């Protein structure tokens, strides 16, 4: 009896200790997570507050910048939509993005299939070469490409971006799609071929539907890359109606030294939130795609 009681108190003490340690680690996780979220999203939260501020509230250094010291106003959002070419920028970004994604898929899907499935001796070196191309930055090429664009008569036209952006999106899409394709079991294609489909038929009818979620992820990724690109857009295009969000907002919402701060911040948040939202939905897909791309098939 006595022995058992001692054991019990010991066990209780241990249990309490573990419990305390567990609670401490839980608290730590939450504190760390909230801190990380605040540091990451802080500038955007502050943008949201700024957007609704009246000028007399905003431009008074004595006012607490983190709260509204005067009634909120929606005027600056109205100005963004009615008084600036913001909607033109959005429209340009969208149609350029859609066309670039279409070109990217049309070229990179077969290329990825070739590299991931139709095992040739040169498949691996080619995949590596394509990965290297992904690392060649716009800052190295923008000068010669702006000559190319000028020669083609596309200077100051948004079409120049449709032509050039696939050079950024194709390599990364091929890499991602290779990852998704390698995850499809080979038997499925072989079965389709036994059933009388040609190799191309098997690819179109059985493989593409299976990697469809991966294709959607690539579409999102390619679109985000196009929407974020800055250097080419800045180097090729100067008239305001042809600009995209990325270059239009920081250059056209500033008149000389006057920054339309509230409208600028509104634009930032309006663009940032939807992109991050969609991206989050596909995060797991991107991770699988990138890691599988590096795995030998």
């Amino acid at each position, binding site marked *: 009896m006595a022995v058992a009681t001692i054991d019990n108190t010991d066990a209780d003490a241990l249990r309490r200790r573990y419990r305390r340690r567990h609670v401490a680690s839980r608290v730590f996780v939450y504190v760390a997570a909230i801190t990380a979220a605040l540091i990451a999203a802080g500038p955007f939260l*502050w943008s949201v507050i*700024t957007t609704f501020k009246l000028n007399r509230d905003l431009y008074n250094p004595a006012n607490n910048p983190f709260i509204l010291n005067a009634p909120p106003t929606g005027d600056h959002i109205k100005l963004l939509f009615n008084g600036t070419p913001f909607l033109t920028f959005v429209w340009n970004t969208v149609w350029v993005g859609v066309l670039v994604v279409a070109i990217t898929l049309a070229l990179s899907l077969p290329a990825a299939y070739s590299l991931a499935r139709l095992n040739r001796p040169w498949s691996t070196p080619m995949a590596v070469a394509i990965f290297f191309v992904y690392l060649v930055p716009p800052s190295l090429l*923008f000068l010669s490409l702006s000559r190319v664009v000028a020669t083609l008569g596309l200077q100051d036209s948004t079409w120049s971006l449709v032509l050039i952006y696939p050079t950024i999106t194709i390599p990364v899409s091929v890499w991602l799609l290779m990852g998704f394709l390698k995850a499809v079991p080979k038997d499925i294609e072989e079965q389709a*071929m036994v059933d009388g489909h040609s*190799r191309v038929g098997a690819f179109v009818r059985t493989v593409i539907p299976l990697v469809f979620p991966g294709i959607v992820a690539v579409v999102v990724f390619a679109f985000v890359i196009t929407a974020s690109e800055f250097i080419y857009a800045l180097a090729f295009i100067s008239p305001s109606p042809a600009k995209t969000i990325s270059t239009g907002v920081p250059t056209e919402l500033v008149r000389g030294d006057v920054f339309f701060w509230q409208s600028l911040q509104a634009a930032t948040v309006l663009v940032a939130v939807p992109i991050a939202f969609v991206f989050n939905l596909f995060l797991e897909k991107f991770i699988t795609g990138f890691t599988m791309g590096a795995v030998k098939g």
Partner: protein
Amino acid sequence: MTAPQEGRAHNRDTPAYRASRGAENRDKPAYRAEVAEVAEVAVKMPLADRESFLAKAFLLPSILYIVALVGIPFFMAIAFSFSDITAGDPSFDWAGLRNYRAIFADETFWRSLTNTLIFTLVSMVLVVVLGKVLANILVADFRGKWLVRFAVLLPWTTPVALSTISWLWLLDSVFSPIDWVLRKIGYLGPGENVYWLGKPHLAMASVIAVHVWRLVPLAAVIVMAGLVAIPRDIEDAARVDGAGFWRRMFGITVPLTLPVIAVAGLFGAILTFTDMTVVYVLTRGGPTNSTQVLASWAFFKGIQGGDVAQGAAIALFLFPLLLAAAVAILSSVRRMETL
């Protein structure tokens, strides 16, 4: 194309079988492809079934696109750097090393080169350390994870030019909320300001801070991918053996994910190294070129100054370091495969 399997699987690994077929090569892609190619041509398969044809036909359009708009422009950039091309006079005339002599004599070029290296190195170290920390937070289980993940990814998914605009306002010379806080806690006197972007060292620190802020999420995502790939049982075994959090972290997780961490760091380095957006939006290279980097200096010279040839020469200095980083990434990836 798959050879019949029956009847020979049982004796396939015997030395006699290998010797008779010379078959160490059997499983090498080159050998298999060669055999398949011979077979395909021999039986006149339709094009849509011939792998040797399909493999090339499927790849060719992408290769052509990339060669035309990346390969050729790359060599054009090299040629430009030896020419006298300007925006006003785009005709190509050989100028020898004149551009290189001009940029070497230019103090701003050396300033840009040093800045590029400093920004890259400092932000790479910070991105790796913070990325690893963030990845550890994001793999933990807690409520509201979705929201935290959303918030954490914002800096990376937002177009750089736009998020930098937010920072420009955050670091404003008069209305910076950071200054307001510093005034409240008494670090700054009333009416005083830090002028984040107005003093050379602070401006450099600000540029680095924005880079780190936007790249840590990317590094965290890459490291997370690596963490997920570690077999759970190794960590469980260590836990059973009584290894604590730090012991498991530095004894198991870090060594096993080292290649992934290296990849994350190198991606961060490349993205910092080649970026001009942060500098362009935040400081325009100022004050007095103290935050100028190679990419932005090439832009100001080549596009805004119109001296295409000199701009090209400046941008070319990005290449050797990029190549080194790319090779390093690749060897890390290779090491990951052997794990």
